[in-house]
């Protein structure tokens, strides 16, 4: 192939430069396809250009780029292989040229959104390269009748093979991005499902086991009182009552471990105060403002505080820790800090620490927030979660 086949070497040079710029601009399919469409219209002196790209399933084409006014249709037009002229080109790996009366051509299919009747002539070529295989189809249309020559077709095909590799990369990139997004959604769903399950279990224990135990304790109390106090049966019933109280305590501990009711009943600030008191190893103070946030946000912040305080207990060797909750009009900030030994953020923290930090960061990100960690050897550690919004319930 000697060049792209353009008569004017300057125009050919400009086209090549344009293609190089387009394919090195970035990994996104949309901008690449739009640039290619624009370059093709300029290089071929046509009126509009459509770039159809094969789907991941390789079973259909989707409009990935178009020159105005059809750029708004990108992503909306989809045709099966074999359907329409482009589908025919894709399935046969052959170019197609229609000078006029395309409605009469058996391959033609009318797409109202692509303005068929306004355009007289068209050329359609496969966009393919040896390493990438068939990636899609390039179409050009003119209002005035035009007899596309072999040279025109060769030019289009050459452009197609030049950009096919980049287009293929862009498809892979899009597929990876979608997969990553799905993975993120999955993590989100797992956390949400886990929280929902914990809440359900805690509710079941509260309404089922706990209340029955409470009732059992009262009946035992009544039975004990009905007997002379030194009778064997009375002693046994008192023992049974003690066991009931112990079991009740265990049920509470289970509920508290699953989903602290204080969070649901009294809100985040009280939940944090209760959490702080449950830490026996280090005195923890809680300061800040009370505010009600959406339930999933309160739970995320509570779990972050829980994890951060567990880190303080396990690693910080601190004598004090503080939990601070601040709400203003635009965001809510939770800070857990300690006066312990700190660590060097640049050095890789231990696996357990880095896992803890990652899970806190994930929780923050899942509710649209972020987590920052500040620490220095000898100067304590502070973990700050910031989430947007302060919608009261």
């Amino acid at each position, binding site marked *: 192939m000697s060049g792209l086949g353009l008569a004017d070497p300057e125009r050919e040079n400009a086209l090549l430069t344009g293609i190089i710029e387009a394919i090195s601009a970035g990994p996104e399919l949309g901008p690449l396809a739009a640039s290619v469409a624009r370059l093709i219209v300029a290089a071929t002196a046509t009126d509009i250009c459509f770039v159809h790209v094969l789907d991941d399933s390789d079973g259909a084409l989707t409009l990935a780029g178009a020159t105005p006014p059809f750029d708004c249709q990108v992503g909306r037009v989809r045709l099966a292989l074999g359907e329409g002229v482009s589908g025919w080109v894709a399935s046969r790996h052959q170019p197609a040229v229609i000078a006029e009366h395309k409605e009469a051509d058996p391959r033609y299919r009318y797409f109202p959104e692509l303005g068929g009747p306004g355009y007289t002539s068209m050329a359609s070529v496969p966009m393919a390269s040896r390493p990438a295989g068939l990636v899609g189809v390039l179409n050009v249309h003119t209002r005035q009748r035009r007899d596309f020559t072999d040279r025109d077709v060769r030019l289009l095909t050459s452009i197609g093979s030049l950009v096919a590799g980049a287009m293929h990369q862009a498809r892979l990139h899009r597929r990876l991005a979608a997969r990553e997004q799905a993975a993120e959604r999955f993590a989100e769903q797992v956390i949400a499902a886990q929280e929902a399950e914990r809440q359900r279990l805690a509710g079941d224990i509260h309404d089922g086991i706990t209340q029955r135990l409470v009732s059992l304790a009262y009946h035992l109390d009544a039975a004990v009182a009905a007997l002379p106090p030194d009778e064997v049966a009375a002693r046994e019933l008192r023992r049974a009552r003690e066991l009931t109280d112990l079991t009740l305590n265990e049920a509470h501990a289970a509920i508290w471990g699953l989903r602290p009711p*204080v969070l649901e009943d*009294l809100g985040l600030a*009280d939940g944090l105060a209760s959490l702080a008191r449950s830490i026996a190893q280090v005195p923890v103070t809680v300061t800040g403002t009370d505010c009600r946030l959406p339930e999933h946000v309160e739970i995320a912040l509570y779990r972050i505080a829980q994890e951060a305080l567990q880190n303080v207990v396990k690693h910080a060797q601190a004598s004090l820790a503080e939990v601070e909750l601040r709400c203003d009009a635009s965001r809510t900030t939770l800070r857990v800090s300690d006066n312990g030994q700190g660590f060097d953020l640049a050095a890789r923290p231990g696996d357990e620490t880095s896992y803890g930090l990652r899970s806190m960061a994930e929780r923050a990100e899942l509710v649209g927030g972020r987590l920052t960690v500040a620490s*220095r050897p000898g100067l304590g550690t502070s973990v700050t979660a910031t989430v947007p919004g302060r919608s009261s319930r």
Partner: protein
Amino acid sequence: MRGRPVRVVLIDDHELVLEGLKAMLARFTGRVRVVGEAASADDALGVVTALAPDVVLCDVRLRGSSGLDLCRRLTEQHPECRVLLLSVYEDEQYLYQALRVGAAGYLLKRVGGEELVRSLELACAGETVVDPTLAARVASSAARLHSQEFWPGARLGLSQRESEVLGGIVAGLSNRAIATQLVIGDETVKSHARAIYRKLGVSDRAGAVAAALREGVFR
């Protein structure tokens, strides 16, 4: 102790608990009489209005609504009626919230018959009744806070960092010097200083120093 028994209405969304309570209170007929019961917040308001009991014994959690909200409504609408909250949760935050919404006390559901009856009588007589274990715990945290075990100024509501910044201010350090000492930014020091002024009710550094010395924050 009293001429006539305390008239009590029981509110709990668990039928079994209501039955248990009645069984346990049955032998105290001379001291306590259960005149009515309700299993939901909506029913409770009607029952209390109709029966005008001396004391309402109410679960903190009612399915679909909160016993704390109900307590607030009851004490607003029937100021003469005393509301004792009953809960399985041994947590100070519930106690504080209960007292804030006007409860006459906070008892744990593991309470024995004798203790419950005494509590009902005390509540009826206008006393505030708190589960003894929980009361002891609250007293000890208050004592700890008062002795400034956490850090200087904690009892004035200063955070640990604010206490450190106030220490610098009292020592006559500039914001820059405090920032360097604490390895934080100048702006952070300024925002801590503003929070300190607000919490101490002063408007400047001199005021903060005076308040810190007056309150004996730094000795």
